[in-house]
């Protein structure tokens, strides 16, 4: 199992286009991937889906726990964290 906490730096948070880009990236891996918005106390760990990403309510500055379990778990977490950095840098 591989996990990492990332801070959402995108000004719109993890919604709309960034959420769609994140979801598409998760589909490149075989591992089981979950996300949890640890900044919101009420948030639960959710399997990655486009609907669940929208429901995270992850705004700019929030911390999101990305967890992956499977044969490519390390690559998946690294790629997803890198993607969030890249999306924030593009804005």
């Amino acid at each position, binding site marked *: 199992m591989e996990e990492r906490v990332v801070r959402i730096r995108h000004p719109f948070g993890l919604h*709309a*286009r960034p*959420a*769609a880009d994140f*979801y*598409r990236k998760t*589909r490149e891996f075989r591992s089981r991937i979950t996300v949890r918005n640890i900044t*919101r106390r*009420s*948030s*639960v760990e*959710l399997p990655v*889906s*486009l*609907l*669940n990403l*929208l*429901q995270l*309510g992850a705004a700019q500055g929030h911390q999101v726990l990305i967890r992956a379990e499977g044969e490519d778990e390390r690559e998946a977490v690294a790629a997803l964290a890198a993607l969030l950095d890249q999306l924030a840098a593009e804005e």
Partner: protein
Amino acid sequence: MIGILIVAHSERLASGVKEFADQATHGQVPIVAVGGAVDGSLGISTEAIRNGLRRIASADGILVLVDFTSAALSVEAVLEDEPAMRVVISNAPLVEGAYLAAVEASIGATLEETAAAALRGRDLIKAPSDRRARYQ
């Protein structure tokens, strides 16, 4: 890849939903927005629906998202003359459905998979502060 037709009673409403879905998919999915009556007032034009369907017709099929029932009925009426087209008219909410469907279509999903993705928009929780909300 499947195509998506957005039908609303207002041209601006339909175009706005398309703009949102186009941005989420970087314009990778064929999406056509149809809205308003022929004279530009609020309403539905079956001719515009027919032209829209033809623009994105493909073997993979078309998912139609509508704002209200009469839009769906107009699409059904047009399809009576287009028996060869593979079309699913979705019961999904318009904005959520178009967004979810477009992203699903952008990763090469089938018409059935895309239609299922759009319907999940009914369950979207938008206000995390709502304690009665139940995550799926």
